[in-house]
Each structure stands twice: as structure tokens, then as C-alpha cells.
């Protein structure tokens, strides 16, 4: 179906598009007909800078299954990374003493 349902996630970071890097503050997330992916429905994410008008975007269109896998991998990368960097930060602080 064609819907206009968009979940907005406020965030802080940067994204790289055709014009290079840009600061982003919002991800528009939706599940609807894609423009490019050969799927009936896709999970779309548009990373934009809403504060600057949101006219530029970095976009992805993912199958539902791959979007769920990505969510798992994001959480896994955050968990392992935070453990590693937490340990590294601890080692660095001990060395500094």
C-alpha cells in the first residue's frame, strides 16, 4: 500500500552523500513501496539535516529481513565496541597514572 507513515528518529552524526559529508539530525524511517529496490515493500531510511531544511538526504531501501538483521548487527556492534573501548579507556587511564 501507499502510506504516508513516517517514523522520525532524532539523532546526532554525519552522513556522506553525493555532495560529500554532511551533518545529520534526523532519520525518516518508513516501510512502503521503494523507488529503486526490486521489492514490493522496503524499509526506507532517509538521513537528513532537518534543521537546515532537510533537502539533501542519504537514503537506503532494505528488505524487511535485511533491515531486521541490520538492527541486530547495530546492537551487536555497539555492545562489543563499547566493551572494547571501555576496556581500552580503562587501560589508558591506568597507564596515565
Amino acid at each position, binding site marked *: *500500500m*501507499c*502510506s*504516508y507513515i*513516517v517514523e522520525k528518529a532524532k539523532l546526532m552524526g554525519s552522513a556522506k552523500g553525493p555532495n560529500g559529508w554532511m551533518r545529520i539530525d534526523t532519520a*525518516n524511517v*518508513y516501510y*512502503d*513501496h*521503494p*523507488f*529503486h529496490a*526490486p*521489492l*514490493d515493500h522496503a524499509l*526506507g531510511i*532517509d538521513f*537528513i539535516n532537518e534543521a537546515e531544511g*532537510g*533537502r539533501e*538526504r542519504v*537514503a537506503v531501501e532494505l528488505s524487511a529481513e535485511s533491515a531486521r538483521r541490520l538492527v541486530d548487527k547495530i546492537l551487536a556492534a555497539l555492545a562489543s565496541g563499547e566493551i572494547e573501548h571501555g576496556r581500552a579507556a580503562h587501560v589508558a587511564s591506568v597507564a596515565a597514572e
Partner: protein
Amino acid sequence: MTYEGMLAETVAFRGHDGDVGEAYYARPLGAGPWPGVVLIHHMPGWDWWIKEATRTLAYHGFATISPHLYFREGPGSPDDVGARVRAAGGVADAQVIGDVAGAMEYLRAQPYANGKVGVIGFCSGGRHTYLVACSLVGVDAAVDCWGGNVIVDDPKLLNAKRPVAPIDLTEKLRCPLLGLFGNDDENPNRDQVNRTEAVLKKLGKTFEFHRYDGAGHAFFNAARPAYRPEQALDGWNKVFAFFQKHLATAAAARAA
């Protein structure tokens, strides 16, 4: 040898509130006279398949214009412009009706036009078609291809941009209506299609609905897994026959 030719190009048209926008326009070459069709694009926007469908109608003898309903959010590629429109909650029904009226005027102003104009739309464009057919004078035939939300079961879906459920305007339907639907579609689902049909019958409107087994939403779209070649071919043939019946004048029928 019979000469066959087509011209397909981007043109400027005057839409709602006199705003000038872009449209994709395909027409058979030759003197005509040609019937006209306004093709209303689906939610993802003005994409390859919409332009392909515009050319398909031209190939079958209809001067066909597809206004870019998101042009006000440009400039930009149609997909980026479509993303801006989605983030803003879509386009307002009144604006779409005004843009389609402008596209109809564009068709009737051409020297080779036969004066008849039909409207066809896909997905959200199917809903727009139903709305336009109930709102504008001068639509000679309308084709709703799987338009969702013609019946609005959840009142929360009505808002300032889409204030009225199209089904509630059915009394004002002024032209013959063709509806094509996949029985596996979820929006509109079978029950909604049946209820729409019941309202059309009750109000004595001229219409024909065709439902396809083994097909869901957007089964004409060769760019998607939903494509069903057999059902799509039959559906297209019904579209051509319907427009031929209601739009062609005797001279246009000979020319096609």
C-alpha cells in the same frame, strides 16, 4: 507499410493555483484526432514505470500526460523530491485535483486533441483518480487501479490534506469508472472493494470492476515482484478497451 511513431518528452503545464510544473507527455505522431488521458502517478513518485505506462497508453493511441504531482518540492531527482513529500505527509487532495485539472486543460488545448479526456491512476493515484472523477467536470472516463483508502475505515487517516474519504463523494461521480484490483491486495482489500462496488451500485453509477486471483497490489509493475504478467496483460487490455469505448470519436478510432 503503416507508419508508426510516438513523441515522449517533458513539458510544462499550469497546475493548481496557476503554478507551473513539469509533466511527462507521450503522444502518437500524426494528425489524430487523439483522445487524451491524464495518468496519476503512485506514491513513490514520478519513476521509470510511470513513464513507461504513459508511453504504453500513447502506443495505444492516447495522448497521455503524467503531471509530476511533487514538482513544488523540487528541484531534485524524482526520488529525492518524493522523499521530501513523504516526510511532509503527502500532497493535499485539493492540490492534486487542481493539478489534474491543469493537465486536462493542457490536453484539450492541443490541436490534434479530440476533446475527450480520461484519467487513470495507480495505487495512491488510483485513490486520486476516484477523487478527481467525483470532483471535476469534464472527465469522460476514469480508471482506478488498486487505489487504497477510497474507503477510510480508520478516521485517524483523515487530516487537513486528505479531509474526506473519496467514497463519500461517490454521489458526485460524473463519468464511467473502471476498477482493477488484485484479490490478494491488503489496501484495498476484498471487503473494501466489495463495499465500494455496493455504493456505486446503490447510487446507480456506470462502472465495471474486475478482480484478479493470484495478484496483489501493483500487479502491473514489471519492476517489482508483485508483477503478474497474465493478469497485467488482461488488465491493460481492459483499460485500452474502456478508454477506446468512452474517449474515442469515430475519427480517433480510425486513427488509432
